[in-house]
């Protein structure tokens, strides 16, 4: 029997007992639907995290801080009173300080093997932002390192190449400052107040070029985003009155390594930094926890879907065993007429695979429809605070993967009855005395 005939026969055989086939398809459908939804959930959430990763930091950079004496991570909270550290600077998180990096430290880091470039990040603490003489609001300043992007609601990112003082406002500041809308804020000038070491307050004017969205892993949180020239100006204003060698104290530094660095190489670099007394944290380290938890949850959910599929697979075994039983005579006859055992096996396992294909396609298509509808409803209501999040997303590769996986499961389930059919002795099948 030729391959096309074999496939056509398998398909028509699948529909010979319609109710039974339909019920089997239904059980596979349930598994396929569940698996599609759970993996869609993983895809959606992880895609959202991936989108915001570039907001958190470049993938070829790590943040380096000076390791604290007791070896605690800088972010580890403690209720014990902390010993005074003359070099401590604000870490940017209220109540947290880190040991500052000095220009000497930066040079040390620069000399460490594997470091391509190092850039010190200055800590700038402005007093307020204000628009057109209106209410003054407390604000913090963040800046993007190379490779970072942020989600913009309007306008564009402040350009480091521009000499003009540029700033991007978080969405939450737009209305309080007195702008009508996100777009109305673009092009307007705002004032930033900053106090120097001798308690003199400076006010610097900057142009609003963009409005940033608040994302789950926003790089700057609710901080305003400044370009290089504005950062320099603010820092200069803040450092007024501090001796030159005292002014340059950095909370942290960004260290770039080769973009093609492998995980082992990055680990080795972190090791060398640790030996020199610094702590290097990559984006993967920072996000590791979040993605691990999400992956874990998705894995468990997928596990449930797989259990449903295994039950469906047993349904296939059952259905086909019944078919083999019913068609004993027919199998015997075909073998008597010269059909090889291999072909008989192929006929039945193809039938199983076809049932798997039908069930999985049905499940995947309906899951995509339901998932898309559900996530659009959710993002408009329950998850409205997380713009850019599509809770259940589908990518073609994983959808194809699911269909393929179910077809493989169906094929494997079909091999048991197919093997029985292939083994059937025509003489036994055709005996009727």
């Amino acid at each position, binding site marked *: *029997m*030729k391959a096309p*005939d074999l496939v056509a*026969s398998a398909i028509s055989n699948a529909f*010979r007992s319609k109710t039974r086939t339909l019920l089997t398809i239904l059980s596979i459908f349930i598994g396929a639907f569940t698996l599609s939804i759970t993996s869609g959930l993983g895809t959606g959430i992880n895609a959202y995290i991936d989108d915001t990763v570039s907001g958190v930091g470049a993938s070829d950079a790590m943040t380096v801080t000076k390791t604290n004496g007791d070896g605690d991570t800088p972010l580890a909270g403690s209720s014990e009173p902390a010993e005074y550290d003359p070099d401590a600077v604000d870490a940017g998180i209220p109540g947290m300080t880190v040991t500052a990096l000095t220009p000497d430290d930066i040079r040390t880091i620069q000399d460490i093997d594997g470091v391509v470039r190092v850039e010190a990040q200055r800590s700038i603490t402005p007093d307020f932002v204000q628009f057109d003489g209106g209410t003054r609001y407390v604000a913090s300043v963040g800046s993007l390192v190379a490779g970072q992007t942020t989600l913009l609601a309007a306008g564009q990112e402040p350009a480091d190449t521009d000499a003009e003082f540029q700033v991007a406002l978080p969405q939450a500041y737009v209305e309080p400052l007195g702008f009508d809308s996100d777009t109305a804020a673009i092009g307007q000038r705002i004032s930033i107040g900053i106090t120097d070491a001798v308690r003199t307050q400076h006010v610097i004017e900057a142009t609003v070029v963009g409005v940033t969205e608040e994302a789950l892993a926003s790089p700057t949180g609710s901080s305003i985003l400044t370009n290089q020239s504005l950062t320099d100006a603010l820092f200069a204003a803040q450092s007024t009155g501090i001796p030159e060698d005292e002014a340059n104290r950095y909370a942290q530094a960004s260290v770039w390594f080769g973009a093609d660095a492998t995980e082992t190489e990055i680990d080795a670099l972190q090791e060398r930094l640790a030996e020199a007394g610094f702590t290097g944290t990559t984006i993967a380290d920072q996000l590791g926890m979040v993605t691990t938890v999400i992956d874990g949850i998705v894995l468990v959910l997928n596990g449930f879907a797989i259990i449903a599929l295994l039950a469906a697979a047993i349904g296939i075994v059952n259905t086909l065993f019944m078919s083999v039983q019913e068609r004993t*005579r*027919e199998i015997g*006859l*075909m073998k*008597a*007429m*010269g*059909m*090889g055992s291999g*072909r008989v096996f192929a006929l039945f396992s193809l039938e199983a695979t076809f049932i798997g294909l039908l069930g999985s396609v049905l499940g995947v298509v309906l899951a995509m429809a339901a998932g898309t509808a559900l996530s659009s409803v959710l993002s408009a209501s329950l998850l409205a605070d997380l713009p850019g999040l599509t809770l259940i997303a589908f990518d073609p590769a994983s959808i194809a993967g699911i269909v393929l996986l179910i077809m493989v499961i169906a094929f494997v389930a079909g091999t048991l009855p197919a093997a029985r059919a292939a083994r059937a002795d*025509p*003489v036994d099948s*055709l*005996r*009727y*005395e």
Partner: protein
Amino acid sequence: MRDPIIRSVDVHKTYGRGHGRFEALKGVSFDIHDGESIAILGKSGSGKSTLMHVLALLDAPTSGTILLEGVDTSTLQGRRLNRTRNETFGFVFQQFFLTPNASVLDNVTLPLKIAGVGTAERRRRGLATLEQLELLDKTKNKAVNLSGGQKQRVAIARALVNNPRIIFADEPTGNLDSKTGAAVEDILLGLNRENGITLIVVTHDDDLAARCDRRLRIRDGLLLEDAGVAA
């Protein structure tokens, strides 16, 4: 005289082992010549069905040899064996063994489909065979909706469609009333006479046996009588 189409040499067939051991054939030898019509006669349990299965290469003899046109069939294995069965033999069974919900044409062309013949050629040869058996008007009917006589004619068409050298008919009239049974006998013997197809009928019906050239009577696994005129 040419080589016999089938030569059976001291064929034994044993089922089971030890105490459950049962000897169905205890050494059977005969020749069947091309174009003969042979009736294999015997009571139920005599070994006549086993003999047919062995002759049709559905079952291998425990000892002894079956020669098909001078070729030792024990040398035929796997694909070659399947091919030989497909091209040389046609089968007609007492209970027809049609696929109930498939069309008459699909039932008839099954051996061609197994042989890997293309769709158009299958249809052409299937229709030609149905015409020969005056079943052309039933082409699209489902097999399940036919009368017993029509079913057996469809089964004969199926046995005939691949132009076999030998047709094995196992109690072909056993499930039919005497009138339709006689018609089916006429068709089978007609094919034997006019198309020169060797006909091997397994039956316990003496009337049908009497219409064949030769009668091989089997009892307790032994060839009791080889009666009739050799062709």
